[in-house]
């Protein structure tokens, strides 16, 4: 157990391919939760507001990414 923990802390977890896109989702969720925790008047509104913000960020970034990819393909 200690060796496994030390191994993870030492050299991390290999992330390749499509996993890097999936790892954007928890990061966006963390940003949305903290932002909405500081902004919402009532804490009970935070979960839904965070989810909506997270989905908005993820869809927005994927849209920008796809748009830039298409633009790149057209220009090459």
């Amino acid at each position, binding site marked *: 157990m200690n060796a496994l923990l030390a191994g993870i*802390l030492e050299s991390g977890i290999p992330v390749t391919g499509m996993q890097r896109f999936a*790892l954007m989702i928890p990061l966006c969720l963390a*940003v949305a939760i*903290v932002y909405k925790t500081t902004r919402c008047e009532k804490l009970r509104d935070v979960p839904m507001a965070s989810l909506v913000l997270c989905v908005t960020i993820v869809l927005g970034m994927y849209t920008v990414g796809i748009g830039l990819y298409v633009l790149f393909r057209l220009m090459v």
Partner: protein
Amino acid sequence: MPVAGFLAWLLPGLGHIYTGHRARGIVCLVTVTATFWTGVAIGGVPQTVNPHERQLWFAAQLCTAGNALTAYAITPLVTSDSGSAPRGAESAHDPPPAHWMSADIGVHYTGVAGLLNLLVIFDALARAEPRRGGKRSERHDSDGRT
């Protein structure tokens, strides 16, 4: 007021807890800390919290001082405990190789956690500040449950 900011810098959410917003503080504590240590687990400590090669990212990580300094402090422990020489490293002083993508993602996670804590610090300072005339708004008296 400065005490709330200092506590929030030291540990995410502690400033909110100090000013009486316990639930809000716990949410910030769990979220920021989980984000930071997820990044450390993805990238590995030596590559993620590295003030020599990633100065600006380390500055961002230092916005959550407790987490960043703890990660920096355990760096020599992690590298010495897991073997006499790091796997595949050129020398004992070089950090062990991680996939470059893992290291970059880990650095982004920890840097964003630090910057999120900056937001938490400013919010704790704003909530600690008394309103004009000594009257606080209703949201300062509780976590919005009333």
